[in-house]
């Protein structure tokens, strides 16, 4: 029994392509989902126009978190920029640090030492696990399965403990800086990390049982919110959203950075491209990250420099040039476009967050004709995070 809505009363299009929606006719209702709404990812909002229970138009509104990073960085020296970049993305701040550091290194001609590269890869994978854990909790929570969120946040806290002993901070680590990383591994880190990873794996088993084998969860998510593989290039879809559509788009494999060419992994892909597949791809990707952390810890050199030879930070000038550095974060391709002009300050920094395309044009397209109940689930399933849209 498939649900076929009556589309005869749907708004016709005006000459300029916009929908002809007359709110006073009583046929449509304008509904704001956000910014103060538990079903929204972060502080953003979607302006829905609904007809009955069905969305006829959705517009994303962002800007609630805009701090003007790109402007602020233009009036900070290269080293002063490094503590603020991590604030751009809260669940996975390390990618900003890495991309910024790598972009500066690329333009300044500095090569970070090998051990620092391994440390970077380690911390990036740990951040990825954190981000996925938040996501799984959010995806289950958006469908009313709050208990998964409790479990995943519990193991996320354990992971944050590992971050804390490694970097001294829970959320903003400020660990990767241009030239290398701040510190090596603390003593006994491997053992505690292994315990945490085991705990994560056992929790993921529970999550798999409760969430992915749950009949109601399947009923809500299978076949919902399908991304057509043909949209991938049109809408610039990257990361798990693209991999769930069957395209093995993974920057770690396509453009190997850091030490990923020495690690053994295959991008996780799904086929059905619906909400269920996207969650499942992320769950398997999380388990792959667990495996990658084990590989990194096993292969990592334990001695050697952590910082490259750097010029004096106070008088550091970088010649004119431009570059783009990318990495695969938990949501997709994360990149920094950096332009220098020979002075001690960046000329222009542009942050390319994956949510920029996922939450704006793609969401606005996908949100049409779905039930209001599914808006939250759909939005969470794209794994968007507003600060990287507006910076």
């Amino acid at each position: 029994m498939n649900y076929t809505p009556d589309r005869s009363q749907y708004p016709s299009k005006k000459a300029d392509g916009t929908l002809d929606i007359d709110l006073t006719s009583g046929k449509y209702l304008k509904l704001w989902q956000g910014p103060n709404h538990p079903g929204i990812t972060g502080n953003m909002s979607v302006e829905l126009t609904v007809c009955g229970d069905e969305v006829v138009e959705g517009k994303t509104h962002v800007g609630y978190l805009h701090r003007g990073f790109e402007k602020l960085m233009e009036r900070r020296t290269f080293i002063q920029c490094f503590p603020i970049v991590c604030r751009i993305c809260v669940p996975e701040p390390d990618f900003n640090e890495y991309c910024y550091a790598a972009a500066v290194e690329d333009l300044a001609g500095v090569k970070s030492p090998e051990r620092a590269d391994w440390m970077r890869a380690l911390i990036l994978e740990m951040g990825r696990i954190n981000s996925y854990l938040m996501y799984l909790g959010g995806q289950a929570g958006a469908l009313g399965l709050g208990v998964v969120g409790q479990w995943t946040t519990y193991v996320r806290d354990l992971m944050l403990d590992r971050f804390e002993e490694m970097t001294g901070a829970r959320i903003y680590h400020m660990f990767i800086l241009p030239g290398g990383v701040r510190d090596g591994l603390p003593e006994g880190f491997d053992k505690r990390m292994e315990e945490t990873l085991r705990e994560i794996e056992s929790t993921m088993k529970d999550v798999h049982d409760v969430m992915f084998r749950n009949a109601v969860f399947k009923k809500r998510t299978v076949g919902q919110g399908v991304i057509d593989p043909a949209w991938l290039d049109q809408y610039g879809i990257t990361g798990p959203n693209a991999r769930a559509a069957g395209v093995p788009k993974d920057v770690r494999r396509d453009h190997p950075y850091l030490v990923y060419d020495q690690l053994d992994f295959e991008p996780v892909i799904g086929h059905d491209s619906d909400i269920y597949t996207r969650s499942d791809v992320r769950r398997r990707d999380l388990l792959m990250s667990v495996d990658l952390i084990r590989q990194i810890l096993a292969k990592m050199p334990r001695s050697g420099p952590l910082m490259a030879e750097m010029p004096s930070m106070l008088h550091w000038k970088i010649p004119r040039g431009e570059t783009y550095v990318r990495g695969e974060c938990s949501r997709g391709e994360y990149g920094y476009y950096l332009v220098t002009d020979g002075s001690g300050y960046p000329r222009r920094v542009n942050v390319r967050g994956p949510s920029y395309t996922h939450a704006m044009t793609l969401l606005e397209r996908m949100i049409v004709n779905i039930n209001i109940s599914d808006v939250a689930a759909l939005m969470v399933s794209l794994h968007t995070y507003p600060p990287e849209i507006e910076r």
Partner: protein
Amino acid sequence: MKEELLKRVVKGPDGVEFEVEPLRDYYCEAPPAVHPPVYAKIVEDLFNWARSQSIWILGFGTGCGAIEMRPLMTPRFDAYRYGIQWRPTPRQANLLVISGYLSVKTLKRAIRAYEQMQNPKYVVGLGSCTINGGMYWDSYNTIKRLDDYLPVDLYITGCMPRPEALLAGFEDLKKLIRAGKAEGANQYAENFDWYKTNQKRVIHDWDMPDYNW
């Protein structure tokens, strides 16, 4: 001023035309009233105790500090033990947590959310951004001092504050409430004009009523 807030003639579903002036029809124009503690001291003390033991936070993550709210609700920190709960609607909440920097766009929403909460209500500012601008002291889009715009009861320092700091902060807030010192709502009502002047100075497109209960 947005189009939907302008005065206009509307044709109802039954075909009758009527005039709508949204700002006057949909909103109440009355400024907020001061609600002093009116009952006998012992009753007020009981109420204050109950208020302190049952803090309902508005689930509005205005900035990065919101990420530490999730651990607070979950096994490791479990703020529910202390009578702290999250409510999705401002009507039922008592505590507005401004979790970090406030861009001007969010400030507007935060003010609306605050005004819709019921007296007595409290505001807690998280992180250095709400205190003096923090990392974003030279940003063109974030405010520097939260207490210019909303009556703040308590600041919790840090960038961002750890969950332990939040719990300690909430305990301090409870002490304030029990002592009857957390009268932010009345302070807001008394200095209403001053707050409104400050708010309008930064929010350039003021397209809402002065006070939306």
